[in-house]
């Protein structure tokens, strides 16, 4: 029984980490800029590809850090791209969808059809035995990265002036602008940060995830699920939502594997119908 419980917990933790990492950056970007980015998965995959390439040259930790740093430039570019092409939500969807396709094409061009991962390097980190089950250290390090990213985002949003501006823009961009906040600059820095977080998460995930073509789209729907359940743009909500979704999905896998995919989306639908602004929203947003 203890063996079952621990293997359930490990599976739960692994998927929780996966889904949290895919949705953190997206929650951040959407919260401030209101751009629903269909290409967010692309930046996650970019981080994973880059980390896998760099890690073989300069070692695992440096490789992951370098991948995150290399993707920093894409944030402002992304913001300018979307703002130049799309004023309405529909145009933004169109623009980011085009970006998703272009990203897939570029990945094929640059990285080819192979699987990219740092799993074999991460294996070298060893594992720790918990009640008779081996837990690889790579997952624990992944959890540490996620916790560090969350802490940084929290500190930024709650404790700094830039974070104050971001929260003001999130709540009401027009009012913030009237009060003298440069909404464009805040949007630029927020999307840069969101994409940095996404790429860093992707880079860290390369320790257990193999990156390949078509992953951008698969990642995206998981991220959507956790965003909806947590309340779009709510960081702590996203953490809790990832836990809820992972618990439901892991239970489905253990009890009735056919329902693996279905269970996740049934949760999403239930939340959308009962609490459209998310399970953990403190105040419901109108429209």
């Amino acid at each position, binding site marked *: 029984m203890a063996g079952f419980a621990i293997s359930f917990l490990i599976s739960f933790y692994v998927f929780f980490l996966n889904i949290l990492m895919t949705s953190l950056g997206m929650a951040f970007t959407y919260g401030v800029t209101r751009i629903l980015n269909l290409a967010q998965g692309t930046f996650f995959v970019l981080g994973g590809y880059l980390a896998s390439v760099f890690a073989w040259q300069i070692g695992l930790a440096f490789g992951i850090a370098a991948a995150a740093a290399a993707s920093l430039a894409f944030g402002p570019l992304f913001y300018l791209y979307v703002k130049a*092409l799309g004023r309405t939500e529909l145009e933004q969807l169109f623009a980011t969808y085009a970006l998703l*396709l272009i990203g897939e094409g570029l990945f094929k061009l640059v990285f080819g059809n192979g699987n990219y991962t740092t799993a074999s390097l991460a294996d070298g980190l060893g594992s720790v035995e918990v009640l008779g089950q081996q837990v690889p250290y790579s997952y624990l390090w992944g959890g540490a990265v996620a916790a560090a990213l969350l802490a940084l985002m929290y500190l930024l949003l709650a404790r700094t002036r830039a974070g104050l501006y971001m929260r003001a823009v999130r709540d009401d961009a027009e009012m913030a602008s009237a009060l003298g906040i440069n909404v464009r600059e805040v949007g630029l820095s927020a999307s840069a940060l969101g994409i940095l977080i996404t790429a860093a998460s992707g880079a860290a995930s390369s320790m257990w995830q193999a990156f390949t073509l078509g992953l951008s789209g698969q990642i995206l*729907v998981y991220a*959507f*699920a956790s965003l909806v359940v947590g309340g779009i743009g709510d960081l702590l909500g996203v953490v809790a939502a990832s836990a809820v979704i992972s618990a439901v999905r892991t239970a489905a896998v253990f009890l009735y594997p056919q329902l693996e*995919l279905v269970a996740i989306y049934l949760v999403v639908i239930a939340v*959308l119908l009962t609490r459209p602004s998310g399970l953990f929203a403190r105040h419901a947003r109108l429209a």
Partner: protein
Amino acid sequence: MRGWLSPIAIITAATAAYFGGPFLRFAAVYILGWSLAVFGAWLLLRYGLVNFGIGASYALGAYAAGLIYKYLHTADLAVHLLAAVGAAGAWGALNGAVGIKTRGIYYSLLSLSLSMVLYGVLVKFYTVTGGSDGLYMPDPRLLGVRIGTAGLLALAALLAAAWAALGEVFGRSYAGHVAAGIKINELRTSALGADVGRHILISSVLASIAAGLGGLIVGYSTSHVSPDFAYWVTSGKMVVGGLIASFLPWTWGFVASAALYQAVELYSLQFAYPELVVGGLLLAILAAWRLYYRR
């Protein structure tokens, strides 16, 4: 009056394609079938609803026929059409009924989740649905006779023409004006006396039926249906097609945009990196639209 030329134009184009050789015939069937799904996405866009799950209806139309063939062993076109309309219509009613509560991106995410539920069922319950391999789609028979490519092309053209006519009626009707009202200001439209929920429900059903018939035609043309029909990327393509159609001023815009999208996708396949070509084209369309819009 000119709008009524749309159905005639579609049938003329299909006839021309018939005499253009076997490849054009196949392409025309595929494009006309796919255009019906684009119609579904376009219709909902008229209400300001971005349905990222329209592919589910598309899949249901084809799966209805595929499952009937697998379990009841009938390839009768009338039975298949009825099943496709029934399945897609019921799905549209479900989508509309739950969608009424949500708007904007919440609607998009809800419809996406609904379609992913169907996708999950289609992939995971493989003993019934054939899993990720999908199902075989038979050559349809009308009164026991195989309708063949010519018959399929005629069917696709008639269906597309019928939906173009419906689009024309819709554009002139009370419902069309209500749709525009809902898109601009839902609360005000409701205050003016329109039953917003009912309008959205009915248009969801119509959009879903259109997409379901489209899936049926495409399934017939390739003799195959797979869960990819219900995957959100498929829906995304249809929404993009619907968006391009809404940029076009004609009632047959949905066929034109489907033809454009499919032609580009087909053309892109000769390159090693087809996504770059399609993505680049979408970007060009959007940029052109933005330039036009600024003036």
